[in-house]
């Protein structure tokens, strides 16, 4: 790292905006950076709840019927509630708010060089609805009957009839919270797309936009295009629960499979909605820390479009054995396996970016590289599950569970840490401690693999998901399988304990860390050209863009980076 650039810019930016009171600055902000951080902090608090739930049910699986320290006894209903809400929280209240809403809000205006989102108040409203949705979800744990326990996919009739689920209001509040959350992201999404289309800095062409911004926008478009059917489904499910309609109840002429189609028509694009922002963040980080131009910017972009487009026609691979016509499955096998084509090309391009680089192993780069390595496992194991005949054996088994945790954990947790460690200097104006960052990295990455690799074996052994005690099944009660469960649980506890290192590092660095220069990583994108942290309004003078975002190590230049806003000589 070039220490010559670490001259700290003193607080000289002119204040276009008058100083705001604490209430309007931090509680009811219109500043996209504060709203982004609100999303990120809310998401991290929800991640703590989700992780706590994971700890509780993993303990129950490893030591069935024992008192779980810091939780208590877990009965079957309680267990169902824990797994259901662990999934719901981690996808809808951690991955979505942190990666899309949080970093989308924080990064888009900074990276495209404008002073704020084009609809700042809509932005604020979107966070407020999101907060309400989180509170509704948390409230659902405490109503009579407890939280909803019908799995995060909430298949009716279990979810639509209180006599079946035994969680009358838990189920209703759950679906209400999910629907509210979608409303919030629809408001946020329209903002992201409009801002990126209309508010780019002068000179920034479509192909000069950093991949991180591009992918968030593509993700938001996917989300907005796919969420409609599910919102309709959610309203129908809520009406089934509370008004006694029978959209999904065969006795009243409804069809349970209808929900599955509506849910997965959204649910599969949703996977790519959370995947793409992380892929974009990783692309930027890899390029910066290997001092290399991205290998095939356009290829990467077009493969993302192709993946997004294909993701709309694969949904029935979640339903191969759900009672759909078996002939239809063949079509979905083809489309599902086809997704490997753009994604493989994209992964190859990422890996090719490293070729000829000068790779520096800073914490964000470790996270980004570990994302590539672990997402590779998640990606290739997906091929097994895309094959319908193997799905006969693997559907709803621990193999599926291990597979999607190998995609969602890298996406959500690794992606979140990569982005947080990379943009932390810009967010708070201070550097994070590198040593603690690396300890936290290894303390998370190694236990993560120790948790989920063994679960593939349990899946091969025919162990199904959402069963609270495998001692009830003679074939699964074997001691060697139980040892695997205990090993995974212990790994989870190790992983959770190492998160305290991060929390300590995060908060101590936020207040006491070394002051960050404007551009600590010598990166090209526009957010690094303003002060750390950027003032309200982002830039002293709005920047003009002269080149693409990835001009690193250009031959004939002394410096190995070339900021987008630096005028040509």
């Amino acid at each position, binding site marked *: 790292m070039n220490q010559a650039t670490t001259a700290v810019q003193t607080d000289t930016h002119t204040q276009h905006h008058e100083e705001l009171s604490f209430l309007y600055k931090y509680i009811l902000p219109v500043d996209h950076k504060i709203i982004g951080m609100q999303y990120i902090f809310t998401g991290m608090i929800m991640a703590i709840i989700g992780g706590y739930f994971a700890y509780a049910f993993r303990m129950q699986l490893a030591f069935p019927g*024992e008192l779980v320290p810091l939780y208590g006894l877990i009965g079957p209903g309680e267990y169902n509630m824990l797994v259901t809400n662990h999934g719901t929280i981690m996808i809808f209240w951690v991955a979505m708010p942190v990666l899309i809403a949080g970093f989308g809000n924080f990064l888009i205006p900074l990276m495209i060089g404008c002073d704020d989102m084009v609809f700042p108040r809509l932005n604020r409203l979107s966070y407020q609805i999101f907060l309400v949705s989180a509170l509704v979800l948390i409230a659902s744990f405490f109503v009579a009957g407890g939280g909803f326990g019908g799995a995060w996919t909430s298949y009716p009739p279990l979810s639509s009839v209180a006599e*079946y689920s035994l969680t009358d209001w838990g189920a209703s509040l759950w679906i209400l919270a999910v629907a509210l959350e979608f409303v919030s992201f629809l408001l946020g999404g329209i903002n992201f797309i409009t801002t990126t289309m209309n508010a780019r800095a002068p000179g920034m062409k479509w192909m000069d936009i950093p991949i991180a911004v591009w992918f968030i926008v593509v993700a938001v478009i996917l989300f907005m295009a796919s969420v409609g059917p599910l919102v309709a489904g959610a309203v129908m499910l809520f009406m089934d629960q509370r008004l006694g309609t029978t959209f999904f109840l065969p006795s009243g002429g409804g069809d349970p499979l209808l929900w599955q189609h509506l849910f997965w028509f959204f649910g599969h694009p949703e996977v790519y909605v959370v995947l793409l922002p992380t892929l974009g963040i990783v692309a930027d980080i890899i390029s910066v820390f290997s001092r290399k131009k991205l290998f095939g910017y356009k290829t990467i972009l077009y493969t993302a479009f192709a993946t997004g487009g294909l993701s709309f026609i694969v949904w029935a691979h979640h339903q191969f054995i759900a009672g759909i016509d078996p002939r239809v499955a063949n079509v979905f096998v083809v489309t599902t396996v086809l997704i490997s084509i753009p994604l493989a090309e994209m992964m190859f391009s990422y890996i090719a970016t490293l070729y000829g680089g000068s790779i520096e192993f800073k914490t964000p780069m470790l996270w980004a590289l570990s994302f590539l390595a672990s997402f590779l496992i998640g990606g290739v194991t997906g091929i097994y599950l895309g094959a319908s005949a*193997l799905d*006969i054996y693997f559907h709803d088994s621990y193999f599926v569970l291990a597979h999607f945790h190998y995609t969602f954990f890298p996406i959500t947790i690794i992606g979140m840490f990569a982005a947080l460690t990379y943009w932390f200097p810009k967010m708070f104006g201070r550097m994070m401690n590198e040593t603690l960052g690396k300890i936290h990295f290894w303390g998370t990455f190694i236990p993560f693999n120790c948790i989920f690799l063994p679960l593939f074996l349990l899946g091969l052994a025919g162990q199904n998901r959402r069963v609270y005690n495998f001692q009830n099944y003679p074939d699964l*009660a074997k001691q060697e399988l139980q040892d695997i469960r205990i090993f995974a649980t212990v790994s989870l506890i190790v992983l959770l304990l190492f998160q305290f290192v991060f929390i300590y590092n995060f908060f101590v660095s936020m207040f006491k860390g070394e002051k960050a220069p404007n551009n600590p990583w010598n990166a090209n994108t526009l957010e690094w050209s303003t002060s750390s942290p950027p003032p309200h309004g982002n830039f002293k003078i709005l920047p003009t863009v002269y080149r693409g975002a990835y001009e690193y190590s250009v031959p004939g230049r002394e410096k190995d980076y070339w900021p987008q806003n630096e005028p040509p000589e």
Partner: protein
Amino acid sequence: MIEYFVQNASSFAGDIDNLFLVITLIIGFWFFLTFGVLVYLIIRFRRKEGVKAQYIAGEKHSETRWTHYPHYAVIAMDVVIIAVNIMVWVDIKQTLPPRDNLVRVIGQQWSWSFIHAGPDGELDTQDDVTTVNDLHLKIGETYHFELQSRDVLHNFSVPAFRLRQDAVPGRTISGWFKPTKTGTYDLQCAEMCGYGHGIMGAAVTVHSEESYDTTMAQIQDGTYESHFQKRKGTKTKFPSNTSKVGDEDSFAVLLASIF
């Protein structure tokens, strides 16, 4: 590979295991190749003093072939996977071989009822034998099943048969299997079905000809002791929810003392 963990006890279990093996070979090759290249590049191009990174845009043909050629190979492998998969799938789920016997499987919260067709091979006749959480099959006979549900979604899942099918209320879903090995296997419900989902299991027993006839006779005159009745007497072997897993001191207690 699967048979190392779970026996293959039905006629199509071997096909599924082979499909698993084919896919494992293909993606294993790709995984180790890609992973190897990734690790090699990370080590080879780590930062060294005085060495500047190269400027490669990845847009010229001489550069893009490094990602495109492997990519064409991926497409070829995809075609192989799709073809092999569809062959297996058509055999198992799209064709119904002629039946030797018939059984109706009914899921409800939270147990399984099995209606065996009896000697005449037809359901809904006088000689049907109904059992709960206990399915009895004759080895080597092709069974058709009629899968129904009384309330919510359930899933009829027998890992040893490599068989899995959702039961949907309001529908009768038919399918087939042919047991090829005697023994007792687990049946688990594999679709979340509420409070008792975790205990909604049953025992599937594959009998030889004679043993099947005696068992059926025993069930009909009420002298048969089901697997679940037998298990009640052997609590130590299959610990219930409140017993410890191992003999040694529980790890949970150890953890509790730390906290």
